[in-house]
């Protein structure tokens, strides 16, 4: 027996035992379950029964390219996708820069602060501070600083408090951390959303926590002129799902006046 033949025989020794009994039935059941009837799970206004077969075909086609598709066509398709992605990234970056500057309208969730009052959250009466954006990411009364670098201990403590309160959905602490007319621009959401007013902001963050979303700091926070940035790992029910960057602008009282979130959640 040749050396190669012996090696092949040894490789055959890795064959595992596979028990197919009952597997086919399970596959059929799963296929039936995943086959959502037209309109089910969608509001009536969004029902589009005639479009569903087309959607299913697309989903299946993504699993494996259709057979006998010429290589040049595939390459052209990849090139198109790449161009669209690059264009999308460029537009997204421009939009983000524009928002940092003046904050044009995106999708305003609301500005009515009647939803959650300090009383209802167990918090004492809040003395509302004027939320004039300051030119520093430092503590209250700190002189404006230019440039970038490490953040002060106070700001670090605020960020740590924010992370903990965010992950726990701790409404009281979050209420104390945000300025009364705080804004959150969330670019992870699709479409991007702007949430205005402390009550709505706190409500939204509490919703993240209820959904099991949490953030873990990834590295030290950094100051960029007037802003503080903190990179985080996003976890869903404890499983890492993606990365994000939170950018905060603090007011003169050290409260968060404006907060941007950008990043990516990769659902697997």
């Amino acid at each position, binding site marked *: 027996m040749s*050396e*190669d033949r012996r*090696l*092949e025989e*040894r*490789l*055959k*020794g*890795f*064959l*595992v035992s*596979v028990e*197919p009994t009952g*597997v*086919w039935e*399970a*596959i*059929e059941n*799963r*296929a039936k379950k*995943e*086959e959502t009837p037209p309109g089910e799970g969608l509001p009536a206004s969004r029902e589009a029964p005639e479009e569903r077969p087309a959607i*299913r*075909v697309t989903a*299946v086609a993504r*699993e*494996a390219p259709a*057979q*006998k598709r010429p290589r040049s066509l595939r390459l052209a398709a990849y090139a198109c996708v790449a161009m669209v992605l690059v264009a999308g990234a460029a537009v997204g970056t421009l939009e983000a820069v524009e928002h940092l500057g003046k904050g044009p309208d995106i999708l305003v969730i609301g500005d009515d602060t009647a939803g959650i009052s300090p009383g209802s959250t167990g918090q004492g009466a809040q003395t509302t501070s004027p939320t004039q954006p300051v030119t520093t990411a430092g503590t209250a009364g700190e002189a404006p600083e230019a440039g970038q670098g490490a953040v002060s201990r106070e700001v670090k403590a605020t960020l740590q408090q924010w992370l903990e309160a965010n992950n726990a959905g701790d409404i009281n602490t979050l209420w104390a951390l945000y300025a009364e007319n705080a804004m959150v621009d969330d670019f992870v959401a699709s479409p991007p959303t702007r949430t205005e007013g402390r009550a709505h902001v706190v409500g939204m963050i509490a919703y993240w926590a209820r959904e099991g979303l949490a953030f*873990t*700091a*990834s590295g030290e926070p950094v100051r960029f002129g007037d802003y503080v940035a903190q990179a985080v*790992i996003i976890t869903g029910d404890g*499983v*890492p799902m993606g*990365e994000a960057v939170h950018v905060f602008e603090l007011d003169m009282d050290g409260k968060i006046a404006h907060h941007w979130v950008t990043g990516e959640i*990769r659902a*697997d």
Partner: protein
Amino acid sequence: MGLAVTYRFGNAVLGPGSVTSLRDWPATESRVREHVHYACPEDVFQHEYVRLVRALAIVAGDKETAADAVQEAFVCLVRGWDRLSTYEDPVGWVRRVALNKIRQHQRSLSRQARLLLKIGQEPSLPVELRSSDPELWERLRTLPPKQRTAVALHYMGDLTAREVAHVMHVSEGTVDQHLHRALRALREALEAER
């Protein structure tokens, strides 16, 4: 003179074909396998499930992941059967989907491990296939992924080089090269240990 052949896989029957001599039989078998028409997805399952799980267990490193990937591929096959049954080779499609699922799973694991390392946590290692031949297994698992896939599909999955090429989306020549290099690397590693 040609020899009439009828080939049967489960409930699927291929009409008579011909081989010129018995020596041609293995080649004809693979041709027949590629062009057999399946009446329903269950026929494909009966024919392909066990050997695909066996082969992909080597690629994935554990049997459970391989079984999950193959089952998911079959779910897709059942759901898209009306369209997929018109394909020239629906079995090849299932193999490719299953292999893609395993690659996705491996990418997801490595991404998770990277993220866990970033926040200072130790990622847990996946459970590896237990083997009665640990020496060879160690060598096999350190082969480049493409070589390992080619070896698994060809030797454990009993696929021809042409079928492996179709699954891996490369040419037959490339598969031969992967197999040749993989066997040489395994042989050399094992000889060096002696």
